[in-house]
């Protein structure tokens, strides 16, 4: 598996897109510091970007990489290699290279501007960790979509729709149901709804870490009570890990049954 991981990783390391992604984050980091010199403020601005962008990039890169490495995959399938090894290796190679672009791209400006000396170091680390989680989650989902659709265009469409659903539409439905069922106690429901969307879960997790939960009003208080505790933290990290494990498990299942 390490060999496949290595080949996928270096294949990506040579591709133009990884550098563009890396440079984008690098530029973003420096611009943020140019606009506001405070590290903690930069972290909050960054949150909104990371929450939307890492899933989008994970989805697009995931689908693109799956379809464009089809030849590579077919070549590997005829070799004495396990199917699970091939797909998990490629998956890890892509996820790691994207996460590395994120961590290096944002890490360099933050380190230069003295994140180590500021109190925002934990929030920043948390942000990068969440970004990494989201990358792994959405690459797994898009690989799963790629394996399910032989047609490239269809797969691409479904993947983008999934991102759109989780990043935008889900929140809309969430809010709408909150307004419609305003008369009922909704805190448990809201908590559950959040768990079923990795983007929402990540957002809440960081907002609470940043101690700006007061902005969220009553629900914020409930969330703070839940997520603010160690128990809540462990639960949410477990759920995020499940969001990686479950799609990748389905991905392997699908890969084992597929004809090439």
């Amino acid at each position, binding site marked *: 598996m390490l060999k496949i991981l290595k080949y996928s990783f270096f294949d990506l390391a040579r591709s133009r897109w990884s550098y563009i992604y890396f440079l984008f984050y690098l530029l973003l980091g420096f611009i943020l510091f140019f606009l506001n010199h405070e590290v903690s403020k930069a972290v909050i601005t960054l949150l909104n970007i990371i929450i939307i962008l890492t899933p989008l990039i994970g989805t697009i890169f995931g689908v693109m990489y799956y379809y464009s490495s089809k030849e590579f995959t077919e070549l590997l399938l*005829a070799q*004495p290699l396990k199917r699970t090894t091939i797909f998990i290796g490629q998956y890890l190679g892509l996820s790691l290279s994207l996460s590395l672009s994120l961590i290096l791209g944002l890490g360099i400006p933050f380190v230069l501007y003295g994140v180590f000396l500021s109190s925002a170091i934990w929030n920043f680390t948390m942000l990068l960790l969440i970004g990494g989680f989201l990358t792994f989650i959405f690459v797994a989902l898009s690989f799963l979509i790629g394996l399910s659709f032989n047609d490239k265009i269809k797969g691409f469409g479904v993947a983008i729709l999934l991102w759109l659903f989780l990043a935008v539409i889900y929140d809309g439905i969430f809010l709408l149901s909150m307004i419609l069922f305003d008369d009922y106690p909704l805190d448990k429901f809201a908590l559950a709804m959040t768990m079923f969307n990795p983007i929402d879960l990540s957002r809440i997790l960081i907002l609470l870490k940043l101690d700006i939960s007061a902005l969220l009003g009553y629900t914020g208080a409930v969330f703070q009570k839940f997520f603010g505790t160690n128990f809540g933290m462990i639960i949410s990290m477990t759920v995020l890990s499940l969001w990686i494990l479950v799609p990748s498990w389905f991905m392997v299942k699908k890969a084992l049954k597929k004809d090439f």
Partner: protein
Amino acid sequence: MIEIKNLYKSYGPVDVLNGINLTLDQKGIIAILGPNGSGKTTMIKTILGMVIAQKGDILLNGESVKNKWSYRDQISYLPQIANFPQNLSVTELIGMIKNLRTQQADDVALIELFGLTPFLDKKLGTLSGGTRQKVNIVLTFMFDSPLVILDEPTTGLDPVALIHLKKIINEEKQKGKMILITTHIMNLVEEISDQVIFILDGNIYFNGTVSGLKSQTKQTNLEHAIAAILEKNHA
């Protein structure tokens, strides 16, 4: 030895293999013939485990290949379409496959033979179809596997390369290997094959020698013999 037992495969509503039973135990060159879409490639890919059959089993030297993977180090496979990662160079591709198989490989002589030396540093995406097929051949024959499977090996080759290919196939045969080959070029079949298997609509229609096929169809020419079978069955 390959034993195919009652192999069924359908893609959606299309039945490709309809319960194939076949035992191949003779060393030498076995030509697998059949019209387009008769299931030749599907059968080959099930042996390799790339296609998963709905029913039936394939035994390689007495062991089922289902859900196995390590047996593939006994097989050299030349795929029908030379699809390679576009942004790798020829050297990198060969190095990668060698690294992944961790077997003794003899690629230098083959590269020399097919005149690939000037292309070694070129990206695979920029190569012509014929050159890519030569790379494909090098990748297949650089390992010393007891079973060689060639799916349309002649596609895009110039006459010189074709002569080299035939020579290599014969050399491999001399080493006592089993070589499965699918092709639509009947001259090649007549020239090199020891056994002929004709697949029609996902079933084995004929299993024997070239002369056997000719006498069964009462034709003197292999191409006409095949055409006679097809016309009889689709008339």
